[in-house]
């Protein structure tokens, strides 16, 4: 298997190149086929790798070539596939493949079909690099590369300026995080003399938490994660990223790319474990983000926006998990989230597809009958995300909450409340979309249809995964064996050693589970009464809303806040620096030197009066001056 490991990222890259070059000449079917096939091939290889690791327990480490080396800074282009990355590989290639498949149907009428698949393949390539890299810099390539693809795909319909803006925003915000990541890498290199995981982690494990500025390093890495995984305060790009085609939202902005931050922290777990302060920060940021995004999601009317904020919220959960030391739990949630969120997005895509591109839920409703497969699969996804057993989300979320409880009761309480919100807004979405009667135009109504099979099959597969995916991590309190934890144990081994085994009494755990499940169901019920029973439709854009609702609906005015606090001042500063400092200040100073000289010239030439008398007079003055000067200075010499 080791020999072919480099093929995993290379195949999608090949797909990118082929589709990129042949985007206009190849037929759509060919393009879709090539793209999907190559990703599938990667998936197959990933499965192979996974099986090998599962059987041997040893990571695969392959160096392809030396990327660059300066002085003692050496960066091999090498891959590391261990337990953690092999699962990520499976998610990326597996979910990726499904989404490719789905996209063939979804994008069928789009002019940029070839381009789309090329980008998608490129994304898979970079995402694979991100998780397969054996050092931070390879990860960073993937890290930025996926940012690029995100940019390209959000701006896929670039003729719409606001889409292009959203793309740009995503890239820039990611870049803010990337800078933190980069500085983190520098710090790591400075203190560990290497950026290869193996070296860094083994060295770090042997150190005391005071030996190196672990807090600083991890904070910087966390900044990177915040950007990529859309946490406060850098989350605003993710909702905007919904401008891209829906499969993109599913793949990039739900299942894979945005979880890169979690992957990175999980990967560097030992460093974070050494820095409890950072862990605290991560937990708080995660929790606040989860709640904050959930609050916003409560009132959104755009189906994709709801999902986007839900993603932000779920990512917050994952960070909460990381912050409280539940590495496995967080990663488990990554996995389950990949299933159900991809499912939800694709389902939403199917809905949007059905209603001719309409995304506003106020104009939907009653689609249950028209889109049965979509409805059922989405229902599964919604249940999963709401944390209702035995669907996938329950197990992963529960694990996180349990750890949060161990860490601090407050975290747990807020976490549960957020889970209730989640349940509420997800079902709200479901009800608004599928229940009641259709609220769109008649033309749209005529057009309503279930999506083609290449779109529904992925939905079904993902629905199954969302339903049963949780069983790989059934906690021991429920009589499970938590396969995932055992599988991942080698990765978190060192951290576990430091933190120590943490377990709750079984009854406590049951109570906790019960609380969260009941909370979720209560929220579900409230949503049902509000949106199905009372058929309460969110008010139109122009109408007044209660203050709190309005605040939530307007996303707490965060975008506006950033606009006023950062963008506008910077733009004003730009103009100021250019017009005042650069042109009037520095340049005019320089020009002033020239102008001053010319003015001096104008003045000085008047000395040349043309009058012999004055010439001679000045000569005399000169002579006197020289005589005086000479004889004063000769006194000094003597």
């Amino acid at each position, binding site marked *: 298997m080791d020999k072919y490991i480099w093929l995993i990222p290379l195949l999608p890259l090949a797909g990118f190149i082929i589709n990129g070059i042949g985007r206009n000449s190849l037929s759509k079917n060919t393009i879709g086929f090539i793209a999907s096939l190559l990703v599938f091939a990667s998936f197959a290889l990933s499965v192979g790798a996974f099986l090998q690791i599962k059987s041997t327990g040893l990571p695969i480490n392959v160096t392809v070539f030396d990327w660059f080396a300066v002085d003692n800074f050496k960066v091999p282009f090498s891959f590391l596939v261990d337990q953690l990355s092999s699962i990520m590989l499976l998610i990326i290639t597996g979910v990726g493949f499904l989404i490719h498949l789905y996209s063939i149907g979804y994008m069928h009428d789009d002019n940029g079909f070839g381009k789309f698949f090329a980008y998608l393949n490129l994304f898979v390539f970079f995402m694979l690099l991100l998780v397969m890299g054996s050092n931070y810099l390879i990860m960073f390539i993937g890290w930025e590369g996926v940012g690029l693809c995100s940019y390209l795909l959000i701006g896929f319909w670039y003729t719409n300026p606001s889409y292009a803006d959203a793309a740009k925003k995503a890239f820039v915000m990611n870049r803010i995080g990337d800078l933190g990541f980069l500085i983190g890498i520098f710090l790591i290199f400075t203190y560990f003399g290497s950026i290869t995981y193996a070296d860094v982690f083994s060295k770090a494990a042997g150190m005391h938490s005071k030996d190196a500025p672990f807090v600083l390093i991890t904070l910087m890495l966390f900044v990177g994660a915040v950007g990529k995984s859309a946490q406060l305060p850098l989350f605003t790009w993710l909702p905007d990223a919904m401008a891209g085609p829906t499969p993109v939202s599913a793949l990039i902005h739900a299942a894979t790319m945005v979880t890169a931050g979690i992957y990175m922290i999980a990967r560097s777990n030992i460093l974070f474990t050494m820095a409890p302060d950072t862990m605290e920060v991560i937990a708080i940021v995660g929790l606040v983000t989860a709640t904050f995004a959930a609050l916003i999601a409560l009132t959104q009317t755009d189906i994709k926006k709801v999902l986007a904020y839900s993603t932000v919220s779920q990512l917050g959960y994952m960070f909460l998990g990381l912050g409280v030391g539940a590495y496995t739990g967080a990663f488990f949630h990554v996995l389950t989230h990949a299933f159900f969120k991809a499912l939800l997005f694709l389902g939403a895509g199917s809905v949007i597809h059905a209603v001719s591109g309409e995304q506003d839920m106020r104009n939907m409703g009653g689609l249950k009958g028209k889109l049965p497969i979509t409805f059922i699969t989405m229902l599964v996804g919604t249940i999963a995300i709401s944390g209702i057993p035995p669907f996938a989300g329950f197990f992963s979320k529960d694990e996180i909450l349990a750890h949060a409880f161990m860490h601090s009761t407050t975290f747990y309480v807020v976490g549960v409340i957020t889970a209730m919100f989640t349940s509420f807004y997800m079902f709200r979405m479901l009800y608004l979309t599928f229940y009641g009667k259709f609220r769109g135009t008649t033309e749209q109504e005529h057009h309503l249809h279930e999506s083609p099979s290449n779109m529904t099959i992925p939905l079904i597969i993902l629905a199954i995964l969302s339903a049963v995916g949780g069983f790989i991590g059934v906690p021991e309190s429920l009589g499970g064996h938590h396969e995932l934890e055992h599988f991942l144990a080698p990765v978190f081994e060192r951290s576990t050693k430091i933190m120590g085994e943490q377990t709750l009494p079984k009854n406590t755990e049951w109570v906790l589970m019960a609380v969260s499940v009941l909370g979720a169901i209560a929220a579900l019920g409230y949503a049902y009464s509000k949106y199905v029973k009372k058929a309460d439709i969110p008010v139109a854009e122009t109408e007044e809303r209660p203050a709190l609702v309005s605040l939530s609906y307007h996303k707490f005015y965060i975008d506006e806040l950033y606009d006023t606090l950062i963008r506008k001042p910077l733009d004003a500063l730009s103009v100021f620096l250019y017009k005042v400092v650069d042109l009037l200040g520095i340049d005019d100073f320089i020009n002033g030197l020239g102008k001053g000289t010319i003015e001096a010239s104008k003045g000085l*030439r*008047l000395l*040349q*009066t*043309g*009058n*012999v*008398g004055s010439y*001679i*007079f000045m000569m*005399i003055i000169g002579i006197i001056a020289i005589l005086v000067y000479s004889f004063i200075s000769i006194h000094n010499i003597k």
Partner: protein
Amino acid sequence: MQSLTNTMQAVPLNNYILLSAIIFSIGVIGVLIRRNAIVIFMSVELMLNAVNLLLAAFSVYRGDATGQVFVFFIMALAAAEVAIGLAIIVMIYRNTNSIDINVLNRLKW
């Protein structure tokens, strides 16, 4: 003659220098205050003569004849300059009907 010169024995050299300097300065002042080119030129001649006198004094003081010989060259120069200078003045007068140097300030700045 002999007696006359003997009386000079007592004149300090500095007095000659002083005298020359004064006359030289008077020449300079003359150049400065007059507008008539010819008078200015005469002031210059005054300066040259002051130098001549000083040279002669030095020559005598040193007992060295070269100083006096030098005076001849200055005189030769003076003669040449006068010839040229007056020619120029005549030429200008012919063109402008004036030898006022203040009129001659077309070339300036």
